């Protein structure tokens, strides 16, 4: 069982951003993708979840063997893909609780309706575990939230919707240490043999709290290096500079011609 990304190429308008990504996230594993700004990390997250602005030009993504790319974004979500957004949208007038109720309802078979009592029990259990005030759930989703509150709301949604594969897109950016711990705690609580994570981050900081099984480095739309947690620490020490020098231009990259990853 895995989320299997195979030779994925994607572009927005005429600009190619993903240039052959291959990566397999098995259930129970946590992968981190690091890379400089503009390397295509967020694009990968959006393409997997089906953002309409991106066009896949080559490659495939299989979720537990089922082709994902021809599915609608909401189908992918119901199949178990969850994306914690870098910039979550404001949904004025819709409370977190009501939004999650609608999302939970959408996962039930047709004709079945959600038990309101069970829903609120689960919601409050998750909020307690994440150390959130219960009245947070009656605030309109992301409307007027601080950066930290938005990320907390993403983590709460992930906890409620229990994805098979959770993708966190720079969820740590702009967070203070307390919020960072909430995010890390939210992920660590869910980690287990039934869930895989893909954590996209620019900094090593988050990985101090969530220890990944694998770390990949992305430059210019390709994964240029893979390794264990020690790779993140190495990057922290040396920065992306040397990698960018090596792989920064597609013309210079040794992988440019084949489009595959070493």
């Amino acid at each position, binding site marked *: 069982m895995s989320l299997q990304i195979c030779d994925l190429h994607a572009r927005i308008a005429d600009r190619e951003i993903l240039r052959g990504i291959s990566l397999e996230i098995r259930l129970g594993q946590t992968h981190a993708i690091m890379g400089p700004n503009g390397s295509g990390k967020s694009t990968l997250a959006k393409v997997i979840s089906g953002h309409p602005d991106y066009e896949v030009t080559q490659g495939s993504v299989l979720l537990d063997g089922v082709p994902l790319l021809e599915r609608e*974004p909401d189908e*992918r979500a119901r199949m178990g893909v969850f994306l914690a957004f870098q910039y979550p949208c404001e949904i004025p007038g819709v409370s977190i609780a009501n939004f999650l109720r609608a999302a939970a309802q959408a996962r039930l078979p047709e004709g079945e*309706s959600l038990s309101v009592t069970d829903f609120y029990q689960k919601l409050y259990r998750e909020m307690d575990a994440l150390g959130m005030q219960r009245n947070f759930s009656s605030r309109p989703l992301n409307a007027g939230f601080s950066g930290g509150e938005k990320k907390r709301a993403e983590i709460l*949604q992930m906890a409620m919707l229990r994805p098979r594969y959770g993708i966190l897109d720079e969820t740590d950016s702009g967070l203070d240490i307390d919020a960072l711990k909430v995010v890390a705690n939210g992920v660590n609580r869910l980690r287990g043999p039934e869930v895989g994570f893909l954590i996209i981050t620019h900094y090593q900081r988050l990985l101090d709290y969530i220890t990944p099984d694998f770390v990949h480095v992305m430059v210019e739309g390709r994964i240029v290096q893979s390794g264990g947690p020690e790779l993140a620490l190495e990057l922290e020490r040396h920065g992306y500079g040397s990698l960018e020098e090596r792989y920064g231009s597609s013309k210079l990259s040794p992988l440019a011609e084949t489009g595959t990853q070493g």
Partner: protein
Amino acid sequence: MAEEQGIAGEDLLQLDRSAGDFHYDVKYAYDAGVGLSEETVDYICDAKNDPTWLRDFRKRALEIFLREPLPTHWASEQLAEIDFSQIRYYLAHGQRAGRSWDEVPEEVKRTFERLGVPEQERKFLAGVEAQFDSEAAYSNMKEALRAQGVIFVGSTEGLHKHPELFRKWFGKVIPPGDNKFAALNSAVFSGGSFIYVPPGVKVSHPLQAYFRINAESFGQFERTLIIADEGSEVTYMEGCTAPRFDTATLHSAVVELVALPGAKIQYITVQNWSPNVFNLVTKRGMAMENAEVRWIDCNIGSRLTMKYPAVILRGRKARGEVLSIALANSGQHQDTGAKMIHLADETTSNIIAKSISIGEGRSSYRGMVRIPNHLKGCKNNTECDALLINTSSRTDTYPAITLRGNRSAVQHEASVSKISAEQIFYMRQRGLPESEAMSLSVNGFVNDLVREFPMEYSVELKRLIDLEMEGSVG
């Protein structure tokens, strides 16, 4: 738990478009025929056994109606498409409304049962009047209210049985010369409610009227007069439906509210007209010292709605409020708004209007706020927000705020927004299909106003919005 009444609610009322789109063949005992003339007015007066003063009133109003031009110089050109000579102005089963549902003719009773009216009455209403075409078929109120002296009857019964109260205020808040359609209503009105709440009586549950058009090419002209005596309180709700016919149907009501010192009137409308209905309604309340008039108005459906609920703030510290939601789908124009006329010191008014335009739908906000020079300590707040769903949707805002002098304060905010593609993607990423994501956003947009409706109506409103949103995507 406030969330309990959230997105997914049990359907308590059954007044959605499909549920309202049916009609039964009914044999009418009274039929004024097609077209409008002095004979039509005489027919109505004879059928209703009107007193002479009312016959004279109606005829004066008819003259005004025939004389006044259609307001197409500022309003929609579509008005010119109404063929007044092809409309039936009075159709009735009988002259007396049943006090129990057993007294109501079978097909009329079946109509209201299908619309869920008797069920609502049992569940949460203090009184119900159910009008079928021109006349009320059913009218009843809880015994306890009758004992307190509350009057809730049809307009005809009101003017016959309580002439001293009725005549004192009838046509005073909205005189026949106010506008062409108020004149039309004054000439041919039938049905509607007459309510009187004695001093200090607080009616805790809503009184409800249900207006049903059953006949094709028909004009419904109900007339409602509500008088809340000193320190009293009352909430009135009206629901409206009509089946979908090929020819245009006209609904032109006049509603007059009188809130005497310290009284509070709340008037709630949920209309869900079929898309062939011209809905041209004049609604105005008068608030005396320390009194409050609140219009809560939801306009869904119809071909053209023109409705600008007004409050005349006549006494010191009077308060007026209009909260309105309009939803215009393709082929529909919701031309709605509010008027606040400040005539005394320290009067306050609040207008919050939200409109949603879907497909080719068009919504317009027209507002009028007047605070003259000599007044002090008056306040008005106006907010109008428009939401456009599709690129072909349209919205216009015409706020007219006249503030003279510097001892009063007004505040005006307007916004136009669209549901962004990012918002929809975000919601879809959580597993919501596109149409549900749209519905949820729209419900969120009107949420703060929907909360002002009684729970039973707010659930229904959410459902009506969901229905309207279907097929709006793509």
